[in-house]
């Protein structure tokens, strides 16, 4: 019994790290640009498909697929911002809302046309391997995804804290007008920020491609999941995104164990409502990227 619980907890934490990476992408974009990327889930799914095709066509390890997803999705996000999103950054929220919902529908439609509605499993050897550590048995794909996501989160944190671009990004998030006053190229900071956010989503997608079948409809789930995660942690907070990811990952795992797997997706939302009642701005609710 104990070992069952430990296993569930461990697998929840592992997936939670990946959720944290997804949420981090959303929260960085929001923290800097004050826009909410409703197409975030689609970007995760792009990553899942990149993982699927990279493994399928080139038989590369998932880590390599994740690197490919990072590069492709960074440029995708950068170009999307520089061509479309930037025209709406200073518009009222309901305009932005429509634009991102539109993009989300467009991306889902493109995936559907390109790959059809059927799930495509990225079955690699990894999907079925496990490692045993005393009480807990972890599946290797999950472990690898979690370690990679955790490392990337740490790297991104260090980069934002210590690099000069990170300083510019935090300055732009803190005070856009102040950024213009000191001569920051704000449009470029925004485009790179959006690229980083999209890359987080894409990498997370590629990392979980051995766990989730590639399927266009996954996107809605991931958008919602990213939202819950970010709100639980506090919108715009770096550490909040990570904590939110872990909470949601564990909550999902426990729900599946204690009740029924079909409650797995419902529990995080129940948790969200409870947390928002007691902590209206999430755990870290502030803008501290």
């Amino acid at each position, binding site marked *: 019994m104990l070992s069952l619980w430990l296993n569930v907890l461990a697998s929840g934490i592992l997936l939670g790290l990946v959720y944290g990476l997804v949420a981090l992408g959303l929260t960085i974009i929001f923290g800097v640009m004050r826009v909410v990327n409703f197409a975030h889930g689609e970007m995760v799914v792009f990553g899942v498909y990149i993982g699927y095709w990279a493994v399928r066509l080139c038989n590369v390890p998932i880590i390599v697929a994740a690197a490919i997803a990072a590069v492709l999705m960074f440029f995708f996000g950068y170009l999307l911002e520089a061509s479309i999103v930037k025209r709406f950054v200073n518009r009222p929220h309901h305009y932005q809302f429509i634009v991102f919902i539109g993009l989300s529908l467009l991306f889902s439609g493109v995936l559907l046309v390109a790959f059809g509605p059927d799930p495509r499993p990225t079955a690699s050897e990894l999907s079925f391997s496990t490692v045993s550590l005393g009480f807990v048995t972890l599946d290797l794909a999950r472990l690898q995804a979690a370690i990679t996501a955790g490392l990337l989160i740490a790297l991104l944190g260090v980069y934002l804290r210590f690099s000069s671009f990170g300083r510019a990004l*935090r300055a732009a998030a803190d005070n856009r*007008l102040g950024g*213009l*006053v000191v*001569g*920051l*190229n*704000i449009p470029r900071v925004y485009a790179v920020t959006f690229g980083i956010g999209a890359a987080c989503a894409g990498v997370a997608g590629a990392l979980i491609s051995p766990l989730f079948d590639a399927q266009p409809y996954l996107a809605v789930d991931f958008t919602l999941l990213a939202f819950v995660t970010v709100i639980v942690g506090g919108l715009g907070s770096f550490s909040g995104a990570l904590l939110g990811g872990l909470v949601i990952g564990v909550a999902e795992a426990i729900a599946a164990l204690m009740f029924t797997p079909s409650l797995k997706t419902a529990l995080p939302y129940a948790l969200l409502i409870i947390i928002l009642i007691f902590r209206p701005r999430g755990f870290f609710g502030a803008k*501290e990227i």
Partner: protein
Amino acid sequence: MLDGALLSIDGLSVAYDGSIALNGVSLQIRKGELICVVGANGAGKTSLIRSISGIVRSSSGVVKMNGANITGLPSWEICERGIAQVAEGRQIFGSLSVEENLLLGGSLKRAKAHQLETLEFVYQLFDRLRERRRQLAGTLSGGEQQMLAIGRAIMSKPEIVMFDEPSIGLSPALTDVMFGVVESLHKQGITVLLVEQNVAKSLALSDRGYVLENGSIVLHGSSHELLNNSEIQRAYLGM
């Protein structure tokens, strides 16, 4: 027109959604001068500074720096030309450390190579900032934040600094300190455009002054003349 003006502005206008905030303003500043633009709340002072610096788009008019037309350039390119500002409301980065704020001011291409020397210069000027360099800028007092905004402007190695009401919200004692800082920067060779509501103190400090009312320059001349102008004495100096 002044010959060899460092910054020359001709017929500059700004409108927000059709309502005119700045209406054909012309002024010139020579290298090394300290001039002031005085005007009441809503006269268009901030619009003037923001349109010079490219943060707000002008609807017409020409801005030249060192003879080169810089009208319509993006704000970061205008900063690269050596035009810095101490903005209204300070606009510091409250969640970043004092030193990070300063380094951001010094991250322009024109200033980057000398970043550490300039930082040392700013710390010598404002000892308080050195003491608090690891502190978050948002935890500084109002006066210290104003020092930080000035230090941040200096970090860009500017040829001209535009001050937008640096004394606002400060106690009378701190106001005097602030004007003292502006004066000492000027003495060190920095050209200053000072925008203020505090007419008496600004004119006392400056070489020349312009009076801005409802978006237009209604009067300009040497500060001495303006201080002795009966209309100004009545409207702005309460005499």
